[in-house]
């Protein structure tokens, strides 16, 4: 374990603020405070435990001693990765990322297929004047449910008069989830490959579609000198400046779910709400837990790729029930992982989940 992490763990005073804010502690065998204690004493930790963490970051944000428990969990996972002893589904995701540069193992040559759904050309970033890159990332490049997001955002950016380009097949996974699974070596390779492309093409600004990508590119790629933003930040600015407006009407009660990597980990709470408020007819509702205390959907930290062992009520279901109680007809999220995890329980309960850009396309 790196010295820095070991030192941080030793400062833990077992106050329990981490466990108090953890979306997994209490309902699963995962207890983040206990893991910190066991790490302090170098006690054995049951191997299934670190995989419950969703990397939502609540523990790290709440910790009064800056122990960064979520980083300690990554270190625990890294040891299991090093030993080659990890859940099979995660192993597949890592091996796929190594070979095809995306956890789903889809062909890298099909990474830009979503562009075919557009009725206008998007240039390679090297051919743009602004050197502004739309970073698509894996789930939105390949998953049939999420492929609509880059298409929508590209149309919205064009409508707002913003120039941008893409890397196409040259883009590799951002590595945000890979690092959190504990595969730091693979993360470094992905980082190196993407940074190589950014440098080669002189990228000046990156618009990330997923909050997970934004987090990695902004905070974990080192001092790149490249401005990294989430697409909601760009659209909110366009709306405020008047370059993007919505002539249509969306007469629905919409509740906004704060994605952990956008909200609590990167402080972007207002922009998605400002966008939704700009939609004529839309009534914006709030969850009982929103903004900094928003409940994690359990899609992060590698949890998109495998199921943990114990059976318990999923947070996505808790979220959907809350949305129903608040009178929402539609749950809006600005993260592909949140959309994917919320959609199943929402469909069961007669609610609709929409990625934020899907609502905007209905009124553009």
């Amino acid at each position, binding site marked *: 374990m790196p010295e820095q992490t070991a030192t941080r763990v030793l400062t833990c005073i077992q106050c329990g603020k981490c466990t108090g804010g953890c979306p997994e502690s209490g309902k699963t065998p995962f207890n983040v405070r206990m893991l910190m204690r066991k790490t302090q004493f170098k006690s054995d930790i049951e191997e299934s435990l670190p995989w419950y963490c969703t990397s939502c970051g609540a523990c790290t944000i709440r910790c009064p001693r800056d122990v960064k428990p979520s980083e300690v969990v990554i270190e625990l996972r890294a040891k299991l990765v090093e*030993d080659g002893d990890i859940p099979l589904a995660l192993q597949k995701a890592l091996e796929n990322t190594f070979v*095809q540069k995306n956890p789903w193992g889809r062909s890298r040559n099909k990474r830009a297929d979503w562009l075919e759904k557009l009725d206008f050309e998007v240039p390679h970033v090297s051919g743009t004047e602004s050197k502004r890159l739309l970073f698509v990332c894996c789930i939105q490049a390949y998953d049939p449910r999420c492929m609509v997001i880059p298409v929508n955002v590209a149309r919205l950016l064009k409508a707002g008069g913003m120039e941008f380009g893409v890397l196409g097949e040259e883009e590799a996974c951002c590595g945000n989830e890979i690092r959190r699974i504990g595969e730091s070596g693979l993360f*470094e390779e992905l980082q190196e490959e993407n940074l190589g492309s950014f440098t080669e093409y002189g990228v000046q600004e990156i618009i990330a579609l997923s909050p997970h990508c934004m987090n990695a590119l902004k905070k974990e790629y080192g001092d790149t000198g490249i401005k990294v933003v989430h697409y909601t930040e760009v659209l909110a600015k366009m709306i405020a400046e008047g370059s993007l407006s919505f002539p249509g009407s969306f007469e629905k009660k919409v509740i906004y779910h704060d994605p952990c990597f956008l909200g609590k980990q990167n402080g972007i709470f207002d922009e998605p709400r400002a966008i939704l408020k700009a939609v004529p007819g839309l009534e914006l509702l709030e969850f009982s837990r929103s903004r900094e205390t928003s409940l994690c959907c359990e899609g992060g930290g590698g949890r998109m790729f495998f199921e943990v062992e114990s059976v318990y009520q999923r947070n996505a279901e808790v979220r959907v029930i809350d949305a129903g109680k608040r009178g929402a007809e539609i749950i809006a999220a600005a993260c592909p992982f949140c959309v994917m995890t919320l959609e199943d329980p929402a469909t069961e309960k007669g609610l609709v989940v929409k990625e934020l850009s899907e609502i905007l396309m209905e009124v553009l």
Partner: protein
Amino acid sequence: MNILVFAKRVAATQEEELRIRDEGAAVDLSKVPFKINDWDNYSVEEAVRIVEKTGGTVTAISIGDAESDEVLRRAIAMGARDGFLVSSGEIFHDPGVRSRLIQNFIRKENIPFDVIFTGVQSEDDQFGCVGGILGACLGLPYSSMVIGIDAVEKDHMIIRRELEGGLQERVKIAVPCVLSIQSGINEPRYVSIMGIRKASKVERKVFQAADYAAPASAGIEVVRWTYPEKKGGATMLTGELDTVCGQLLGILKEKGVFQ
């Protein structure tokens, strides 16, 4: 027990739409990523597990170009002690040529072994017979489709072979021998990038395939790459969801899939 394991670097083609180029002369692999042959991955894992229990060494051997070194690094990261690259820019499609090359290499370099593992087949050529031909070349007992190794003794092994109909055949095979390992025999461990980086520090010996080539020319030669003949397309059902579901149910009943 000293085990030699053959590991081949193959194109990861499952997700690719492969294109034939130069009027059938070659397949365009310029944008296709490469990986270890799946069956060889299981073979390396099985060899490492045996050695972890009984002692001995695992030596991974790859025949191919310089890039094949990556599967050797991977095998070493999994637990192989040595990695040998039998280097050649030429692709040996003919399994007979491959087998004789291996035979000559092992004999000329006097490489000690108790057991040789090959994968049942390689994902690219799919002849599925290098193990068998090699056994014959070396005059050793051979067993194919090995799905389990139950006992490892000095002079014999008890293995299980996978048969059709959900059956397995338990076989006692004398050592030294050649085994073709079936996928699913184990769950290969994850090989971390850090592990591969550490393995890179272990020296891999490079041999030149030309030094071991058999005098006889290839009996099998690729004449031309072709696409399979196109047959009738799928039936597309269109219309409202209820109508489509009704149509689908009707078809399934008609075909006897659903009663």
